[in-house]
């Protein structure tokens, strides 16, 4: 692999020089950091990173290559990938290729050799910043200008960019389905669907533009509103659809789905300073007192007082910053979590939520 100079510039004037990997070119996005120590392939294929340049705080990336299974979506949607050191040689019995080849084929620009800790500290102190990665430009001032000219995340609807155009159907694992579930795909991770299928659900995956009537057509036992990218407040159509569905069937929201349900109930969302992206955040289940180590990936959060004002009950709290991680609306058979019980990557501590959801479907 030949190396080529590459730059990462931030809107605050910081420029990192490094080496290019993956695709060549120029790409802008909101720069975020992820603190997970494994699972870069799942992160790369998570559609929620659409519009973002992802920095791994773990310094040695690409060690086990990429494989055909650890994939969360058919396409890569992120704007760029930043690492400290890219493995020259990968090693894993499951590997089907290198990370470099993978990003190259997917057209994602990557930069290695970056002081990712310095970058992370900057993002922590100043909040998420827009940035640009380029193999084509080297003038720092030009690069910074380009970063400043890129789109803001707040107010940005990225669901449109990642949502499917058509409906698909996923069979339940191991024969006849016990339940029918509709999953609204705003950029949903495949592992959410795998989890449902494992628990005996036949899943109809629909775009978020699908009407409530159309969703109810197949007489589903429940509805799952999955993760996705961008500012939740901009996904008005889906919020409206949810408003008409709440109370009519059990609904489970995950991540963006959590935010959309809160908005549908009348609560508010806000942008976090630098978001939660990682696989080690402790979340306390308010009902049991137990702590789950969770997989996280979100830049927005639900405002608790506004949620409580509309009858939402806090069920899960982030022990790091006390932000909302889950709520329920018992009357309306709605519950949701901000984090990722499907993990991928991350711990399986919260897998019980899928069982909880499926448990509601018989009612």
């Amino acid at each position, binding site marked *: 692999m030949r190396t080529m100079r590459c730059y990462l*510039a931030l809107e605050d*004037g*910081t*420029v*990192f*020089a490094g080496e290019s990997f993956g695709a060549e070119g120029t790409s802008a996005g909101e720069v975020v*950091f992820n*603190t*997970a120590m*494994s*699972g870069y*392939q*799942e992160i790369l294929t998570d559609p929620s990173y659409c519009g973002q340049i992802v920095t791994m*705080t*773990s*310094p*040695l990336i690409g*060690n*086990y290559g990429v*494989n055909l*299974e*650890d994939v969360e979506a058919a396409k890569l949607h992120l704007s760029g990938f930043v690492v*400290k*050191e890219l*493995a*020259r*040689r*990968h*090693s*894993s*019995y*499951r590997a089907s290729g290198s990370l470099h080849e993978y990003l190259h084929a997917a057209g994602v620009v990557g930069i290695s050799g*970056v*002081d*990712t*800790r*310095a970058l*992370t*500290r900057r993002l*922590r102190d100043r909040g998420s910043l827009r940035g640009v990665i380029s193999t084509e430009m080297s003038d*720092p*001032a030009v690069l*910074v200008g380009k970063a400043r000219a890129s789109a803001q995340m707040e107010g940005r609807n990225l669901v449109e960019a990642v949502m499917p155009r058509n409906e698909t159907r996923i069979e339940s694992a191991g024969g006849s389905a016990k339940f029918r579930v509709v999953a609204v795909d705003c950029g949903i991770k495949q592992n959410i669907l795998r989890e449902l299928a494992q628990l005996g659900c036949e899943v109809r995956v629909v775009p978020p533009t699908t009407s409530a009537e159309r969703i109810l057509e197949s007489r589903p036992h429940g509805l799952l509103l999955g993760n996705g990218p961008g500012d939740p407040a901009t996904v008005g159509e889906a919020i409206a659809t949810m408003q008409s569905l709440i109370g009519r069937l059990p609904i489970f929201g995950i991540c963006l789905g959590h935010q959309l349900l809160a908005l549908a109930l009348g609560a508010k969302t806000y942008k976090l300073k630098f978001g939660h992206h*990682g*696989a*080690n*955040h*402790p979340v*306390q289940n308010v009902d049991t*007192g*137990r*702590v789950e*180590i969770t997989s996280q990936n979100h830049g927005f959060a639900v405002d608790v007082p506004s949620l409580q004002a509309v009858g939402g009950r806090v069920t899960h709290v982030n*022990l*790091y910053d006390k932000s909302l991680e889950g709520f329920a609306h018992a009357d309306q058979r709605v519950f949701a979590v901000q984090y990722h019980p499907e*993990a*991928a990557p*991350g*711990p*399986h501590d919260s897998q019980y939520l899928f069982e909880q959801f499926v448990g509601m479907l018989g009612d």
Partner: protein
Amino acid sequence: MPKREDIHNILVIGSGPIVIGQGCEFDYSGTQACKALRAEGYRVVLLNSNPATIMTDPETADRTYVEPITPHFVQRILQLEKDRGQPIDALLPTLGGQTGLNCAMETHELGILAEYGVEMIGASPETIAKAEDRTLFKQAMQRIGLDLPKSGTAHNMDEARAIIADIGLPCCIRPAYTLGGEGGGFVSTMDAFVDIAARGLARSRIGEILIEESLYGWKEFELEVIRDCNDNVVIICSIENMDPMGVHTGDSITVAPAQTLTDREYQRMRDSAKAVMREIGVTCGGSNVQFAVDPRTGRQCIIEMNPRVSRSSALASKATGYPIAKVAAKLAVGYSLDEIPNDITRTTPASFEPTIDYCVVKIPRWTFEKFPDADETLTTQMKSVGEAMAIGRTFKEAFQKCIRSMEIQRAGFGLDRNDRWLTSAHERFAEGQADAYRTLRIREEVADEAIMLGSRQGEAPADVDESTATHWPIDRAALRQKLSTPCQGRPYYIRYAFKMGWTIEQVHELTQIDPWFLDQMQQLVEFEAELLEHAPQVVAAATHGGVGVGTDLLRKSEMLGYSATQIALALRTQIGRTDQIEPRDDDGAFRMVDTCAAEFEAATPYYYSTHEAPTMRVEDGRVVNGVEHEIRLKAEPHVVVLGGGPNRIGQGIEFDYCCVHAAMEARRLGYRTVMINSNPETVSTDYDTSDVLFFEPLTHEDVLRVLRNIVAQAPLRGVIVQFGGQTPLNLAEALKAAGAPIIGTPPESIHLSEDRDEFTKLLSELGLLQPESGTARSVEQAHDIAERLGFPVLIRPSYVLGGRAMELCNNHEDLDRYVRRAFAATDRVSAGMNAPPPVLIDKFLLDATEIDVDAVADFSRPGDTKGDCVVCGIMEHIEHAGIHSGDSTCAIPPHSLSAEKVRELERQAQLLARGIGVRGLMNVQFAIAEGKPYVLEVNPRASRTVPFVSKATGVPWAKVATSVMLGRSLRDVLWDYGVGRRPRPTMTAIKAPVFPFKKFHGVDAVLGPEMRSTGEVMGIDESFGLAFAKAAMATGLSLPMSGNALVSVNDPDKPRVLPIARELKEMGFKLFATVGTHLALKTAGIPSVVVSKQAGAPEGFLLDLINHGVLDLLINTPIHYGASWEEGRWRAAATARHLPLITTIAGAQAAVAAIREMKARGANRALGVRALQDYGAGLR
């Protein structure tokens, strides 16, 4: 849940002496836990026999019992505390390693805990049994559906044979309940199987071995797991062993976090670990769970779990910043994880999983050079005595930093004085082969007889068995053998293989090391070629700066972890940097260990150095470059303490103890304290021991970089080098030359004590005696000197650790061999001196009594008339001079010296302190021969006896010394600590060493001038005999009260052994003796059964008596040393069977005295206990 209010007094059991498999990590975790429990308001009662620990400091626990770790003493403690009105209600067994756990279990099994109503907290007996008992563990794992290697459990050889018939060879044998896998191993032949199975059965506490399917070559991983009473489980750290299965994890190079697992595989492992915790029933504490992964299929097998803190948990704590022992202690008293704050961030709870943004490498430290007969092949039985850890942003950087932390005369991964490839390349280059560096890699077939230079220099060569590979290119067969046998030198041979053009696949096939790691090493090898190809440009860049390929390569070399020493050696030039302690711009970056990969601001300053490319900032159209620095120091004056690096024989926990005390005392005086050390097992590298911690190699270059970064922000009051053993002492001169303020005894005074000629001059000025001696700079000179002095003579290299290469010579032949070794053994090459220092030759004093004196003084320069010196303790050795002082058993107060003699020794020590100009601690070794004291050696620094003396006298001498070094007068400091002019202990304290002989199969267990003990214990009681008995017990040696004693001594000892034999006889022992000794006994009228030294004789064969367990005591003073002699083999056999073995007459006298006193008191029922706090009260 809040803490438990139903328990108040908690007994904590420590791990006893430092042995292979149980190092000072348990002092670290035990100390942390004791502090945590007391902070919660519990009263902590401690049992630990190791006086060199911080844990046994009287202020660490409320009641400190330095007694043997056995159920008997636990019972005595429970009784005494009950009698005192504060009965113990809980026992925390999970902090004292296998020793603590075993003792707790035995106490439980004897019903003692139930009798006193004591509850085991942290881990219940059922949990411990389930985790430790192979059969129960296997059943438990099968219940939860986890994959295990095929295996069977045997209690005798018939069962063992039946199992192996089913499993097939090769297989692995693991004895139940042993330390560091002792007695186990991999076997591939039936003969070896029978041999090791029998040994394992004998070693196991419950006579049980596990025979397992061989997972040789599988990848090995460990998870450090914590679970609380609410069933919250968190993984603190994952650790990947670079060496595959087959090498004990304590002997493996390990890396954190795991590098070659996908998230899916890692989460599967994590789920398994959680399931294990639940099934085994660890409800409130930490555990270590080990896995093997088949690299071809991903199959994961569980190997074992330890329901306690461990060496790995100490490593995980240091690697992540998460204090596992502290948290585990709080969980044991009822807290849940979310109720405990994370000390590093202070704003987040302990119920999270640390995420790290660096790479941690640990390399074990072996001491095979001390045991030339030992097999250095690494197996499932641990052989290393210590370890170093390094942190870098990449594996390559951490790996090289860790290698140079080891102090094995390696400056990194190659490009040093011991690099045979580089030496050869330089020679070829000098011969005019301009392309030498490039072509060497491919021209492996070239016959080249150039002998490699200097590869045997150093305290510990990285590879003991170098004879097969002294030429470049290395013989292919030899290299193949080196790669396929796990041993300490293997990484360097991997490098040579790459240099010779071998592929990663070839090396992988032989080593089974994951190709990812091999590629990391190959990248370094390739970089060397690149560097040397551009040597002129690099030299130019180093001299003049500028931009271009030279500058790029220099920067890259730093980022890859190369030291300037390596680069300079490779380029054969001093690269032009001022070596001064002044801040400079291009000085690398220091990064913080913060548990959270910078996601949150961290409060605890715990740093490592790294190198990063500068970041650009566009400000008002201008571009500014800079590397981010994270060090934040307060403006107050800082005191830096240099630690001792990895534990090894001769430099271990005793020095860490002193460093910790130095930091505590400097802090008490209002200074900000900074610790620099690379040893993850220690209290000194705990994040709250000092104000700032730098986890760095202790080399001149690395230390100087830290100092430069300190002076950039804060005043540097001084650097303390005299507490960490030889390591920091070797750095003192060069650091001082670089402008660092070395405090305490100045380097010129140190020089005065170390330079033989100057020292001799000083002694004659002071009117003190010294054994006749000479200084040899060549082998010929050595012979002349020996001729003049007359044999026997003692030879020793200067500036070495633990008597390295020190030998007693009886003739010219021995002298010749040993002098050559001594010239090669000095440590100073690493400190930048070129000519090898001289070898010292002393007349050996026969039958002399050896005395150690520790003192503190506050003189400012040699001959200073102001100032004072206080003798801390006078230790009389039980063994005669000639046995290394670190290996001798010694007593405070002296048991055979008159008061007048003691005063004379004090006077001489004080004269010496003044003459040398000691400021701080000093240790003097005297030998008393024919009534006259001779000065053998003076070391103006902390000696390894300081903690023992402190415990025996109740005065924290290292703290006293620190205050003095920081400028206070001795008188004032003694006043602070309420110490009179002459502390006089009222009890007898005995320090006894422990040896690793039984880990090295077949090695002769005899004492000599070279130190070989790994740790020590203290026995303390009213009389010499009782204290000695306790000390012996604490080393694991139970002196017999009756039975069969065998006596076999050399001719000079024959008259001396008579009273010993007579007394044994009188006490009811049945005596056995070898022919010569038998005759001597017979002449003196002492009957004994004669035994033969050879097999097949009509009399009983000595080795059979040992192996059949007939003997209860063996007294054998050596004629010959080493495994090649019959007597060496007896001693090795006795050691292997735990038969009490005594190899000196003095030791036998002491043992007999102890047996006599114990019998008089009704055996060990008489041995009582007393807390250090009570002794302390008696002293003041």
